[in-house]
């Protein structure tokens, strides 16, 4: 019966294995029409998402540029604040310029003609100096400088700053002339009186009006928000062990293939490290961006065809026979056959360069702070190495060089959520721990592979945060 079945099977196989059937006409044309075309050289050519992302990147870059420019202006203004410092302490009512050679206490009283300076800001134009500072007059100030309070020249810093020609203020060398300008400033709602000592302020002409505008900008904004905190910039360096999870969904391939993929691969621990730049936008909110490197590791186990090992065993026996008969030697040859599979383990690596775009809400005290972070992680580029199964269940190499169209090398997006706990180490440094969850929004592979693969991850970032503008903010305070 079995023999009969084998014959029948062989007959069918011989008849059909190499059998050729007529091919329908026009099939080749259909295949040509259906064949995938080569990708354009510019990978985002026909990709609307890429346009959006490019626009977002441009916005981000221009935003960063503006922030940096603002920062420059703010630092410039804070330097000039030492020149025109807001005198909020009641004890510092009278200050004077003191030169080393000629110590002259010259009081410049900011006079305020109501018709001229009701909405003036100091130094908005050069006329203010010439009109408001009157030689030898003491005019009570009624309503000027509500916007910028009491501006005094601080003696020590004035010497430095006034001598600095690059800041646009050209103070005459003859500052020590005996012309004395006394201007008394009094503010109706403040009980203190402040005086500014200047020498020949009419000669205090701005060389560069723009620089004075920059000085005033800070003060104008300061009026609207007198208690505004200085903008803080931080640099964060971090590293994290990641536990990655892979979700695979069928997109054309059979369930059996997916099961095979699932059984041959096992995700291992990965890691992430990077640098982030943070900027405070108010007391509690920060925006963060930077660059990070992520590596996901996976173990791929493939079984090759059955491996047959044959060992020949020769057994020699000697039979001793009595009665004068000679001994007989018997040689038995047997073969031991072992059948098994060759198991090969390959470590797959999925590596990415990414840009985190995060918003952080932070609260706490001087020592401890807690922050909730959220945002997206934009995958700039990815590259791969290792092996996977093709649809014919054959191991196939994954590598950036032999791009086989399995995986994307361009942009992907992930959602990111985390909680940070920060501990202050000293004035400049804070240490933080940040458990996070990362959810993949887009597939890491192409549709050609027949299934969709996304990575999610949980991890714990550990790092340090350095306050970049610690010195400038402390001097401003």
């Amino acid at each position, binding site marked *: 019966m079995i023999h009969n079945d084998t014959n029948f*099977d062989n007959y069918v196989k011989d008849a059909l294995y190499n059998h050729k059937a007529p*091919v329908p006409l026009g099939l080749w044309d259909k295949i040509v029409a259906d064949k*995938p075309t*080569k990708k354009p050289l510019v990978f985002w050519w026909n990709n609307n998402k890429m346009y959006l992302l490019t626009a977002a990147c441009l916005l981000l870059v221009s935003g960063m540029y503006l922030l940096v420019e603002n920062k420059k202006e703010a630092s410039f203004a804070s330097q000039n604040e030492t020149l025109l410092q807001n005198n909020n302490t009641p004890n510092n009512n009278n200050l004077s310029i003191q030169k080393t050679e000629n110590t002259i206490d010259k009081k410049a009283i900011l006079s305020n003609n109501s018709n001229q300076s009701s909405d003036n800001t100091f130094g908005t134009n050069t006329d203010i100096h010439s009109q408001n500072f009157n030689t030898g007059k003491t005019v009570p100030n009624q309503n000027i400088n509500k916007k910028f309070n009491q501006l005094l020249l601080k003696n020590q810093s004035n010497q430095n700053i006034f001598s600095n020609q690059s800041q646009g203020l050209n103070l005459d060398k003859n500052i020590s002339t005996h012309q004395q300008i006394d201007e008394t400033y009094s503010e109706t709602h403040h009980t203190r009186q402040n005086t500014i000592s200047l020498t020949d302020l009419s000669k205090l002409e701005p060389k560069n009006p723009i620089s004075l505008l920059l000085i005033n900008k800070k003060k104008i904004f300061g009026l609207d928000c007198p208690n505004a905190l200085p903008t803080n910039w931080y640099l964060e360096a971090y590293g994290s062990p990641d536990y990655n999870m892979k979700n695979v969904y069928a997109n054309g391939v*059979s369930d*059996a*293939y997916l099961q095979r993929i699932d059984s041959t691969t096992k995700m291992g621990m990965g890691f992430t490290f990077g640098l982030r730049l943070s900027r405070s936008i108010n007391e509690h909110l920060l925006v963060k961006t930077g660059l990070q490197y992520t590596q996901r590791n996976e173990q791929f186990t493939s079984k090759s065809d059955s491996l047959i090992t044959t060992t020949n065993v020769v057994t020699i026996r000697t039979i001793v026979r009595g009665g004068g008969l000679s001994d007989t030697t018997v040689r038995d040859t047997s073969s031991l056959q072992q059948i098994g599979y060759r198991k090969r383990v390959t470590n797959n690596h999925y590596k990415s360069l990414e840009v985190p775009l995060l918003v952080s809400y932070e609260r706490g005290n001087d020592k401890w702070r807690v922050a909730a972070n959220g945002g997206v992680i934009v995958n700039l580029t990815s590259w791969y190495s290792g092996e996977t199964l093709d649809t*014919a*269940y054959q191991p196939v190499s994954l590598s950036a060089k032999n791009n086989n169209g399995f995986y994307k090398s361009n942009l992907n997006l992930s959602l990111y959520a985390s909680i940070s706990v920060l501990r202050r180490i000293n004035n400049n440094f804070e240490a933080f721990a940040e458990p996070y969850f990362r959810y993949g929004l887009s597939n890491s592979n192409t549709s050609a592979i027949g299934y969709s693969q996304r990575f999610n991850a949980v991890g714990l970032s550990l790092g340090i945060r350095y306050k970049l503008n610690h010195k400038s903010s402390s001097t401003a305070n």
Partner: protein
Amino acid sequence: MYILKPLYPLTEHELIKSCVNDNPSCQRMLFDQYAGKFMSVCLRYAKDNMEAEDMLQEGFVRIFKHMNQFKFQGSFEGWMRRIVVNVALKQLQKKRLHISEIKDDINNDHQLPSYAYSSMGTDELLKLISRLPDGYRMVFNLNVIEGYTHEEIAGMLGIQASTSRSQLVKARKMLQSQILQLEKIAV
């Protein structure tokens, strides 16, 4: 990159390389060389010519798309055939291929003499195979003609290896029974 059909006969290696480089004339050569065989493969899995044509079209598209994955290890024809078979299975699974036990009352005692099928034409044999129920046909094709083991078939179809074995036995019996009936009619 070749634009015109090469004047000299290409080796298989050269043909594959040219196809990977998207040479249309070489791809056409490959198609002409193997389309007949693979159409026969598809006909064995499909219910009709239209379905087989769809399978073959999809199969060649996939072959050209993934040809760069061929590592020049083993038979190229075998590699292509595996793709075509997988495409055929995938298309059948899209149609919710259901492998179920079919109650049959075929007499086990029938012994099919070899002369009964030795004179049978290939086209007739193909027709008989195409009349088998889906599950029987898949397992019979994969095991008897393509040479897959029951374990491999189980993995491909998502069934138990024992189910594959029983389906094969029943498929064989059904086919032999049909051949006997044809023989009786002829007599």
